[in-house]
């Protein structure tokens, strides 16, 4: 194993990949198209504003009116006022099928204008079933609060929104979609091209050609792994950026998500290599590759969370390697649940090692 040689070979592999537009399309552009389509279809974050019902218990004091106009300027919500006579706003929202509400407490102006000023708490109600709207409302209120804090107190936190979401954080479709599509990209970019590479290179005797040089199989594999890991990182950056900026997804690139982006591509490079190596022709390799790829593409929680699956389908998902990548990425990037991610990581690690060992056994450069 000579890393210098692996490094010398890497640009040749990268060039070959980049100059074939289909490969880049499948690995980088296709997932972006998918997030744009699915994101647009399943979230209502178009140009329309989210309706927000506001109960002002501070009798339209100047400070509360100033805050509401700051909220209005965010452009994210359309405010409709209700009279304080409605009483408990959350009950009112539930009875009127409204999804978001804001209560400005009595004494809002007095507390803010006191000396010293006293922090006030805004109650923000959002409905868990209303998808991404809750996040938009919370973001808008927080934005207005920040603006007011800056204006009246030089940034000191005086206006503090309290988000009253039922139970814990609400996850929206787009939150699941980002890790799902990262998993999709981690699966698809090695599978489609490695099956093709290993079968057509075998047919065209390109591995034999490489075996005439000092490059070893393990050096070749290292360079190849490196390339698909790089692709996974680029794809992750694209999907994460679009998910957050365009659709307001609540996903974070945590340290714990990185090992999935390394081991995932390694696992699928090994599986793709194996599928291509055991096939006699590129055509049969493509069929085997598709048989492996398609069920995983749809049943591992890529487009829909496995928690929504009917119970009989859940064991099927659990049998697919990609499930553990996506489940782990969800745990690491969305839920912030490290212990769940560690279990997934262990599964991926074992699978990646096992498939790499089998693939290198089957994948021979010289013939016996």
């Amino acid at each position, binding site marked *: 194993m000579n890393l210098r040689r692996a490094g*010398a070979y890497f640009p040749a592999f990268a060039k070959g990949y980049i100059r074939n537009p289909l490969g880049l399309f499948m690995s980088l552009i296709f997932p972006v198209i998918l997030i744009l389509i699915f994101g647009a279809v399943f979230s209502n974050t178009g140009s329309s504003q989210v309706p927000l019902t506001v109960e002002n218990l501070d009798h339209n004091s100047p400070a509360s009116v100033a805050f509401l106009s700051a909220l209005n300027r965010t452009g994210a919500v359309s405010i409709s006022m209700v009279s304080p006579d409605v009483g408990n706003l959350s009950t009112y929202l539930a009875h009127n099928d409204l999804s978001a509400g804001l209560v400005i407490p009595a004494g809002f102006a007095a507390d803010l204008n006191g000396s010293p000023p006293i922090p006030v708490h805004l109650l923000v109600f959002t409905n868990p079933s209303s998808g991404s709207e809750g996040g938009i409302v919370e973001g808008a209120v927080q934005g207005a609060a920040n603006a007011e804090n800056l204006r009246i107190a030089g940034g000191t936190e005086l206006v503090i929104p309290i988000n009253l979401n039922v139970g814990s954080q609400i996850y929206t479709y787009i939150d699941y979609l980002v890790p799902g599509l990262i998993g999709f990209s981690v699966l698809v970019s090695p599978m489609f091209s490695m099956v093709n590479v290993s079968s057509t290179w075998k047919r065209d005797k390109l591995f034999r050609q490489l075996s005439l*040089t000092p490059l070893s199989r393990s050096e070749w594999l290292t360079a190849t792994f490196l390339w698909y890991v790089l692709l996974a990182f680029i794809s992750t950056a694209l999907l994460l950026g679009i998910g957050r900026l365009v659709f307001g997804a609540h996903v974070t690139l945590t340290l714990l998500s990185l090992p999935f982006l390394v081991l995932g591509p390694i696992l699928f490079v090994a599986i793709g290599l194996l599928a291509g190596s055991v096939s006699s022709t590129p055509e049969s390799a493509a069929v085997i590759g598709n048989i492996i790829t398609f069920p995983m593409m749809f049943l591992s929680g890529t487009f829909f969370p496995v928690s929504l699956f009917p119970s009989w389908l859940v064991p099927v998902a659990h049998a697919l390697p990609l499930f553990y990548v996506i489940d782990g990425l969800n745990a690491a990037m969305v839920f912030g649940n490290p212990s769940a991610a560690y279990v997934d990581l262990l599964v991926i690690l074992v699978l990646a090692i096992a498939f790499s060992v089998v693939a290198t056994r089957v994948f021979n450069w*010289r013939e016996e």
Partner: protein
Amino acid sequence: MTTSIEVSKLVKVYGTLRAVDGVDCEVHTGEVFSFLGPNGAGKTTTVEILEGLRRRSSGEVRVLGLDPWTQIDKLRTRVGVIPQDFHFFPKLTPREAVRLYASLFAVKVDVDELLARVELSDKADDHYDTLSGGQHQKVGVALALVNDPELCFLDEPTTGLDPRARRSIWDVIRRLRGEGRTVFLTTHYLDEAQQLSDRIAIIHRGKIIATGSPTEIISRYGRPERLRIVGEPALADRLAALGLRVERDDGGVEVELRTKADALKILETIAASGLRWESFSTRTDTLEDVFIQMVGRLEDGSLPGASQENRL
């Protein structure tokens, strides 16, 4: 004379098929040695064993003093190989291909000079998949030369090429020899072997049936020189009367020349006969004639001991 390759009792078995069945041969340093045989004769299997790409079933093989299967790491840096059906990565250019090989072999190469040597300068920056078949082979030659090898293996380098491309590959092979490199060539083109080789081994069904220089093989296995006369059929009877071996075919007569004096005798006889004739020509067997005859005789069993008795 030093030897670059020594092979003795080489056998390669695939299942029940003995693809290589006891091959012995020696390749001298600095010569062009051709392995000649029809498709499926065992040429490529043998050469791939010599290159270290395939493991032998039994027998002894030494290439530059090394065992090609177990000492491939040492051998690789000293030999250049153009395998049969050479292909390369479709989206790389010849320049990138040569640079890649140079960095893998960790050698410094003047890329432009090397590409000029194989006449690829004007295609240096075109993707491999846009080049012609002959240019593909030249990329193969360039890559085989990156490590400045003492010994080059060329496995059917001109198969499938048009005549112009073939001749241009021939020029490259002659140049390799001129540079003092040993060349091991396999081919099923007899004219190619005859044109290029210092020595030839003819392989048939896994066995070597003849070895020697092209002229040695022709004189040993070919028929004697013949005089061909186009003219009246009655000429044949006159010449047969001289005690010569005469063959008649449409439009002419072919007479075997055992000695130079035979030619004079024939011409005198024709002149004296007063019969009409149109032209004379002499005809010598080519390697192709010899090869076809040998293979034919092997297959009908009339050349049983060729591989044992007649090796040079």
